[in-house]
């Protein structure tokens, strides 16, 4: 790792101030992506600004029909939270299947979505549930938040504060894991929301998480696995790498989507 300075703000304002004044400051959440990246010397920030001591970024609350999850909430907390389990069990299960137990004890939802790894799980839940991302200065809809591989709508000194998930009628997430890394080769989040059906795919897209409008329309008309049988996603927009070809991923999107619909019950 290259050298850096370490800062430990106690409030969001202090964190923003630290970000603005550091020559090249970077936020540190759970560190489960950032620290491995630094160990490989793939980044060289001047300062790490640790968000762990800012109370306003932590915790899970229920506001009417919305579940609000603070940016610094660990994956393990989301997986075991009675509020999440009762209202959006698919989200609790998704969180409980991220990486391994030790990664879940440190990794956070804010870090995961800010990082926007094309094979990460939370982006599929945000897009599938039509979540809203609250930052220090604005609200960003999930459709606008995830812009490209490892790219989001966040500007340089913007901090994710919370993610707001509308409670769906029903939802399920199905992930075909890479057995070595546990990241998704393909993951499909299907949700029947109060304003329509959403199908969000992670792991497969050449530019990150995406929706499948044809499947959404078919499921809106008839929420059954048969309704999406035969709907294929174009291979041109999919990722090919050592783990899976675009053709294989396209096939998996169909399989995982049907399994998710079936799991919705």
């Amino acid at each position: 790792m290259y050298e850096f300075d370490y800062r430990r703000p106690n409030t969001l304002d202090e964190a923003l101030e630290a970000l603005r004044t550091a020559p090249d400051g970077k936020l540190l959440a759970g560190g489960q992506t950032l620290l491995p990246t630094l160990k490989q010397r793939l980044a060289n920030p001047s300062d790490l600004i640790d968000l762990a001591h800012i109370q306003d970024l932590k915790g899970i609350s229920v506001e009417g029909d919305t579940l609000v999850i603070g940016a610094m909430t660990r994956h393990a907390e989301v997986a075991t939270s009675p509020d999440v389990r009762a209202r959006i069990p698919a989200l609790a299960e998704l969180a409980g299947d991220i990486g391994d137990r030790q990664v879940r004890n440190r990794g956070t939802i804010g870090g995961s979505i800010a990082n926007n790894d094309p094979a990460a799980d939370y982006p599929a839940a945000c897009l599938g549930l039509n979540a809203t991302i609250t930052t220090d200065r604005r609200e960003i809809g999930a459709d606008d938040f995830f812009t490209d591989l490892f790219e989001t709508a966040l500007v340089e000194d913007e901090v994710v504060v919370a993610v707001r998930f509308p409670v769906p009628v029903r939802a399920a997430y199905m992930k075909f894991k890479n057995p070595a890394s546990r990241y998704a080769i393909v993951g499909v989040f299907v949700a029947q929301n109060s304003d329509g059906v959403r199908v969000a795919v992670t792991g497969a897209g050449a530019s990150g998480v995406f929706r499948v409008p044809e499947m959404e329309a078919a499921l809106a008309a008839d929420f059954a696995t048969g309704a999406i049988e035969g709907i294929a996603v174009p291979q041109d927009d999919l990722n090919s790498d050592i783990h899976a070809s675009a053709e294989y991923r396209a096939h998996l999107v169909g399989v995982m989507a049907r399994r998710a619909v079936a799991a919705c019950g």
Partner: protein
Amino acid sequence: MTVTVSMTVNGEVVSGEVEPRTLLVQFLRDQLRLTGTHIGCDTSQCGACVVHVDGVSVKSCTMLAVQAENAAITTIEGLADGERLHPMQEAFRENHGLQCGYCTPGMVMSAIDLVRDRPDITEDEIRKGIDGNLCRCTGYHNIVKSIKAGAQAMKG
């Protein structure tokens, strides 16, 4: 530039001068000479470095020492009571749950966190629960057996 960190390690308050980039595992091994915690990879995948931080299992290679300020850390050295092994350590010994032993400290630390209050944890749950710990020797079978026995023993 160095900074001072203090934390409780195996029940004792310790402090030291570290660089901000010092990993918790480096602090434990190089400064405190607690070399039971191992380093098996540089990609946060092997689990040889697992310790408990405030009661939960964490990869100490993926946490900075400064992030552990004021935390309570338990390492493999902190488990036994004098000559008496922790029930999970004893279970690994009894069930031949190790061969070269490189992965063992991390396995034991992960196992204790996994089975706490779950004496009847199933084999499937154990296999899934140690996803973050790799072993190149045993084929896992006896590790799973050890953890199952350790879970029962920890109940008593």
